[in-house]
């Protein structure tokens, strides 16, 4: 019991995120929650349980599947959905390629990361979703720091950073016209450390690749990329085995591991608390392309 009626900062963040989830459900007609099997969306699922149980979620879940995911993550995704008894829609980048909606990049640096945007926008339109709940956080990246909790998108799915709706108190304006949509970010105010502390406190299961394991990797641009059928090695890149773990979960083609011995949630929390490098700087090739990489992709409709 707390005679002072104060919440710890994690419970503050939790309560705010639950409030946001319920606002989406109340204000929008057809929301969907994006679930990738990554740590942030794992937290979103727990928050959805907290917001809506004992009822079922008032929205389905959707994964934009590039086909280049870590198998451990897909296995985890399916198991978690089964446990929750909720509905999962899989939007496939491979299908977008097969239909000619997007063209696969070629060469050793090819990635399906950018193609995801089209698959996502197509799937939102096909199912008539007017709100997509995602796990993006403002601490991830400088362009994200300027994003609203309810982020308005025009009927091309585009973000206009200069014309955002002011967001005051805890009043969220989810009013849209037909064809427009909102992206909703309940974890806006969370940091990477908050996410891990919360996972630890809630004792949530996460895919095994978040913990240290031995894996065949090779070095590119200072990152340790996994050897996989989805990446061609370039001259001079020699595979070797190392103990790594992942800080973010993206495609095998552009997500780097970090050398780590962190074998438990407790170890991971301690490692993140001590780290001196951001998760995207350390592990995401897709954000290194230009200084404004994230801003450009967001304007196109990326999460």
């Amino acid at each position, binding site marked *: 019991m*707390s005679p002072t009626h104060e919440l710890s900062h*994690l419970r503050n963040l939790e309560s705010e995120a639950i409030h946001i989830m319920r606002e989406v459900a109340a204000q929008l007609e057809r929301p969907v929650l994006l679930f990738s099997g990554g740590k942030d969306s794992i937290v979103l699922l727990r928050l959805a349980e907290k917001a809506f149980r004992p009822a079922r979620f008032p929205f389905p879940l959707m994964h934009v599947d590039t086909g280049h995911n870590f198998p451990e993550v897909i296995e985890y995704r399916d198991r978690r959905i089964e446990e929750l008894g909720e509905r999962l829609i899989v939007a496939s980048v491979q299908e977008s390629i097969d239909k000619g909606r997007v063209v696969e990049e070629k060469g050793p640096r090819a990635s399906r990361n950018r193609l995801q945007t089209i698959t996502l926008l197509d799937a939102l339109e096909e199912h008539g979703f007017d709100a997509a709940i995602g796990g993006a956080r403002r601490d991830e990246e400088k362009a994200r720091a300027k994003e609203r909790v309810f982020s308005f998108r025009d009927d091309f799915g585009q973000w206009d950073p200069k014309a955002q709706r002011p967001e005051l108190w805890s009043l969220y304006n989810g009013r849209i016209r037909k064809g427009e949509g909102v992206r909703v970010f309940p974890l806006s105010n969370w940091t990477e450390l908050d996410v891990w502390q919360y996972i630890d406190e809630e004792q949530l299961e996460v895919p095994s690749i978040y913990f240290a394991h031995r894996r065949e990797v090779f070095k590119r641009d200072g990152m340790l990329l996994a050897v996989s059928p989805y990446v061609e090695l370039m001259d001079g890149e020699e595979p070797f085995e190392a103990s790594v773990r992942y800080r973010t979960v993206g495609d095998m083609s552009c997500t780097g591991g970090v050398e780590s011995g962190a074998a438990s949630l407790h170890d991971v929390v301690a490692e993140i608390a001590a780290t001196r490098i951001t998760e995207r700087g350390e592990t995401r090739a897709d954000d290194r392309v230009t200084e404004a990489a994230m801003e450009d992709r967001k304007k196109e409709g990326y999460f």
Partner: protein
Amino acid sequence: MPGAATNGHPKGISGGDGIPQAGQLRLAIVGSVDDGKSTLIGRLLFDSKQIFQDQLEHVEETSRRRGDGYVNLALLTDGLRAEREQGITIDVAYRYFATPRRRFVIADTPGHIQYTRNMVTGASTADVAVILIDARKGVVEQTRRHAYIASLVGVRHLVACVNKMDLVDYDEAAFDSVAADFRDLAAKLEIPDITLIPVSALNGDNIVDRSEKMPWYEGPPVLYHLEHVHVASDRNLHDVRFPVQYVIRPMSDEHHDYRGYAGQVASGVLHKGDEVVVLPAGLRTRVKTLDSFDGELPEAFPPQSVTVLLEDDVDVSRGDMLVGASDQPQTARRLEATVCWMTDQPLTARGRYIVRHTTREVRAIVEEISHRTDVHTLEPVPGANTLELNDIGAVTLRLSAPLVVDDYRRNRQTGSFILVDEATNATVGAGMITAAAD
């Protein structure tokens, strides 16, 4: 675990050593273009070791490329390409940092055009406002405006950082003169808690560590003050206000009769068994259960998100409010409010808007604009026909259906609203209720 509160959650925070576990403080940092605001924020992040190595390398490289001649910490907070190119800040940005004592959320609001709109937005959730003053210029018009807006949106703690002390030779008399002017201003604005700190954000004097160049200053540096300022009692724990946000009805065999009213406690402390009134209908009933995913709770307090089950089968839906039987708010069809206008198309008398208040939406007509506040002199200007972008004024609204409200001074949650344009769906105004009538 000093200060950690688990509040009904059986699981403690099990983080490793040195990991912050205390409460959260929300800050709005405000200043004019050249007051050194971005530098102060960069300095707070840098000196509290919250800047990551790759971010710092990036800033060092960009500073070199731009020919700044020093590591320009202001670059840490410029997020968008146009901002970096033009050296300005476009919109409110949020930053996070933590010390072992507290976790901080900073609303970083730009100091140029659209200033009022952005500052009102950033400060609407702030516990503390930090205002930057250039020691060479003293209290200027912008300072008055910043302090006025902070007081208007109900920020109770103001920290005035008298910056660029290095440019006035760290002179005590220079600081004292600015401090005296600022105290006069704050007294007029009825801000209860004022702190003045002489700093040099560029050199890090009195930001995280005490400055050796100003031995005459006996107070704490900025970070220490922010870690210790007492904000817990700012919350309203007296008036029970629970806006119903969402009705949970599982309709499964196992939970056949479950009908839970989900929401976030706006104010007051709600206990199992308490008598409550459902407004605006006025029905009385009792709290049967305070439910959560983690089990039943004996009580709920702000800002907890919980689910309330009631004793009687009364008709309750989103937009209703559960309130304490002895401390009822006003049910109003007419509101007087201070409105900050946020869009190019002006607010006019007879204008029609949507009012979003707590979890309820009603239509409203502007009956009267009784005055506009001159943000330069802070004096009311009667006879205004419109409120333009970034204007602040007193407005009377007539509502299409009743709202359950409190005075903003008493309750930030139930005293605030936004105005939405029915045609564009844009958020066009922010309102703080000053009076209400049937």
